[in-house]
């Protein structure tokens, strides 16, 4: 699941659906604890009535559920990244880790991460001189 890695990076996770906390409890006991040793380690929030989903623009009024939206929020409370997928396709944990590492790097150094960046690859230092000269220091992958 990558939660230990997220903890190493200092990131907390909150899951949330319109189900009650009692439903979360039973789901954890009957199924999730069989998939994750010790059960789910992070808080499972209840969004009864879809109030929070509406605030985040992910509540489906017709279906009465929150769609599969994921928000990455920085230490100042700003949403840096968001992704939403329809039900058949699961999220990609690797992409989430990549984004977190990229945003944490940018926060720490002021450098920016070009398209396709993964940890270890070159970053760019945004300066006025760089405008029009990115091609000298970076090329897109073919």
């Amino acid at each position: 699941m990558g939660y230990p890695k997220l903890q190493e990076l200092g990131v907390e996770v909150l899951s949330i659906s319109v189900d009650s906390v009692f439903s979360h409890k039973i789901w954890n006991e009957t199924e999730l604890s069989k998939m994750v040793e010790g059960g789910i380690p992070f808080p499972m929030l209840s969004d009864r009535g879809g109030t929070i989903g509406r605030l985040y623009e992910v509540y489906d009024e017709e279906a009465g559920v929150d769609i599969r939206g994921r928000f990455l929020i920085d230490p100042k409370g700003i949403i840096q990244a968001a992704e939403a997928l329809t039900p058949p396709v699961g999220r990609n944990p690797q992409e989430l880790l990549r984004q977190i590492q990229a945003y944490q790097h940018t926060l720490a150094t002021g450098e920016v991460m070009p398209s396709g960046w993964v940890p270890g690859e070159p970053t760019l230092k945004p300066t006025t001189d760089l405008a029009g000269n990115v091609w000298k220091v970076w090329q897109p992958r073919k």
Partner: protein
Amino acid sequence: MLVGKKAPSFTTPAFHQGKITNVKLEDYLNQWVIICFYPGDFTFV
């Protein structure tokens, strides 16, 4: 879209490691947090 904007505040009940508690978004100021919405318990992610 909300990207680049302040994450909307909320306070709501939660199930966490065997206990029922209340969670506020403000509890997580000064750290990175991921919120994962999903349609329902007992559905396959």
